């Protein structure tokens, strides 16, 4: 069929394009002057070189102009609606040793994977505060929280929530297909850094060591039926300009291959965690962070952008007009922490913005935004919560309530 998604093997994926993208970046980003930045900002649609110009040091001096364009694009495409969601940590078993992560195999934290009943309890707690979109997370532990475990968890969550995403280890095409059938509509995959050398140093052991397998995961997921893919680099590991540029190129590659795919970005900046003390991140200053976000927004005006509670409430509020379209709220980064708030402090990273869902929604309204709780991607699975509510409504009518 001419309209079917095709599974594209690794050799035909983004990995072979990396070197070319890196070359383009190196040639463009430091050569770009103020004229290139202004030209890029004056165009309707930005190409790869324009994107590089917006990430250049020269563009850093034009941050106000960049922010104006980003604000206009965001308003045009997304208006004043902003989505709310929360992550739900299913398990923290992990066989990787990512040196920057609080959950890595070498840390002495208490390990746990939620049982079906516990997942149900977490779901109930999140549902009760009004959330209808969740992102399910695990560590990389195929024996404890492998694809079958994730699919079963998604099935439980999809009974209640209008949108369920996953942020888990890199899986196979077949595994993604199974999880999509179970009701997941999106996958989030942080490549962490697109610099293969730095990547190798930061991921000394575990399945995640294989750079190309992770890089190819979003397209396996898209081919397997995930409707949305969110990409991100963990800012602070490698050079931020290069990692943001490659994230954009990766997204463009996926967009061209899967025109129906909804592309999204997350912009996590590294936060303190109980990680390897030998690792010291390169902090990304606020102005550079804003440049990264606004450059991505100008390059891909249609992409959703997520900003997590790693960032402060002030920073998150200020970035809402400039491109952020999805925010988490009332977040716990510990396993099972919604139904039973964490007692032992085993969290993946420390939260900065501690606003509850109700507080976040109220603050959004104060800032002139409409907090959107329900926004399905998947009419197949997304009608389940509506159908449930329908039954309630019909039942209420029949009993005269």
């Amino acid at each position, binding site marked *: 069929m001419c309209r079917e998604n095709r599974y594209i093997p690794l050799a035909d994926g983004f990995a072979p394009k990396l070197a070319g993208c890196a070359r383009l970046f190196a040639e463009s980003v430091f050569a770009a002057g103020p004229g290139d930045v202004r030209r890029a900002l004056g165009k309707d649609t930005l190409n790869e070189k324009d994107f590089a110009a917006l990430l250049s040091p020269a563009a850093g001096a034009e941050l106000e102009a960049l922010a104006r364009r980003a604000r206009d694009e965001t308003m*045009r495409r997304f208006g*004043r609606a902003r989505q709310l969601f929360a992550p739900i940590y299913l398990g923290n078993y992990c066989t990787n040793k990512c040196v920057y992560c609080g959950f890595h195999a070498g840390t002495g934290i208490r390990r746990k994977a939620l049982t079906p009943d516990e997942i149900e309890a977490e779901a109930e707690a999140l549902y009760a505060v009004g959330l209808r979109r969740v992102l399910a997370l695990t560590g990389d532990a195929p024996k404890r929280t492998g694809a079958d475990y994730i699919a079963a968890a998604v099935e439980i969550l999809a009974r209640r929530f209008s949108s369920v995403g996953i942020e888990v280890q890199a899986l196979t095409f077949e595994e993604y297909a199974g999880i999509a059938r179970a009701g997941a509509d999106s996958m989030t995959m942080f490549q962490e850094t697109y610099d293969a050398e730095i990547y190798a140093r930061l991921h000394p052991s575990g399945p995640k060591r294989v750079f190309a397998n992770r890089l190819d995961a979003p397209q396996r997921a898209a081919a397997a039926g995930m409707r949305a893919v969110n990409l991100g680099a963990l800012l602070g590991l490698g050079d931020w300009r290069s990692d943001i540029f490659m994230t954009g190129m990766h997204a463009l590659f996926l967009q061209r291959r899967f025109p129906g795919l909804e592309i999204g970005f997350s912009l996590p900046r590294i936060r303190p965690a109980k990680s390897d003390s030998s690792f010291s991140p390169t902090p990304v200053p606020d102005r550079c962070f804003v440049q990264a976000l606004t450059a991505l927004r100008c390059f891909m005006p249609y992409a959703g952008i997520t900003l997590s509670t790693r960032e402060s409430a002030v920073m998150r509020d200020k970035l809402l007009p400039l491109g952020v379209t999805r925010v988490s709220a009332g977040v716990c980064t510990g396993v099972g922490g919604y139904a039973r708030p964490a007692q032992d402090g085993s969290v993946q990273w420390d939260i900065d913005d501690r606003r509850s869902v109700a507080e976040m929604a109220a603050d959004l309204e104060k800032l002139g935004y409409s907090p959107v709780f329900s*926004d399905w991607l998947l009419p*197949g699975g997304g009608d389940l919560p509506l159908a449930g509510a329908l039954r309630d409504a019909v039942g209420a009518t029949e009993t005269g309530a």
Partner: protein
Amino acid sequence: MQQTSTQSAQAGDTADDPLLLGGERLESRLFLGTGKLGREELIPDLLRASGARVITVALRRVDLSRKADDILAHIPADARLLPNTSGARNAAEAVRLARLAAACGAGNWIKIEVINDPRNLLPDGYETARATEILASEGFVVLPYINPDLYVARDLVNAGAAAVMPLGAPIGSNRGLQTKEMIRILIEETALPIIVDAGIGAPSQACEAMELGAAACLVNTAVATAADPVGMAAAFGRAVAAGRAARLAGLGRVLEQGSAASSPDEGLSAGFPEA
């Protein structure tokens, strides 16, 4: 409702020129969207200020379990709710959404949106026609959103659509009637009301669409993202009414070149004998 009619009448005397659609008399030819509003509580004010009665809501944003907080709670009882199938990527998904809308009490009007291109948000005419055919046969009042393509429009007529909704320009672009010549052909060739949807960024552009012969206009971004959405909705209400009034009054022909005297007498008919 009373207030609505009064306002439309003031805006341009369209009260005696209703749009008949799906068995209803619509006094205003402006339809409003809701997808980008900052405050859903504004919906009643937008309707009142503009005179519009038809309002479209994405079913993907509806969550009946939230009751008072849900968007449907802000739609006045006298408005005509037009659920849309935003999020559907093929005919089957659009059909499923439409049936759900009806099942949850949102009525039998449905705006079909089938989009499988998040980058450009352009509608898929083939899948839209398929969904229209199925839903019209089930008794829905189907308003399909399309590229202004004559062949798709003819398919939609055959499929039982109640109206055809061609885009003036890409959604949210505020570029106005970029597809004007194609829309003109649809208006001339199609036996159904043509409702221009998407791309209208200013009241003057809505007025132009109505002067061209569109039966109505649907506006979302231009109102929702205005500094004063209620004021902008009111301006659109007047512009649509003015454009419609001009259409009914009969516009002069636009000359390709030269000029025409206001009182011409060139003697062209002189010298012919009376019959």
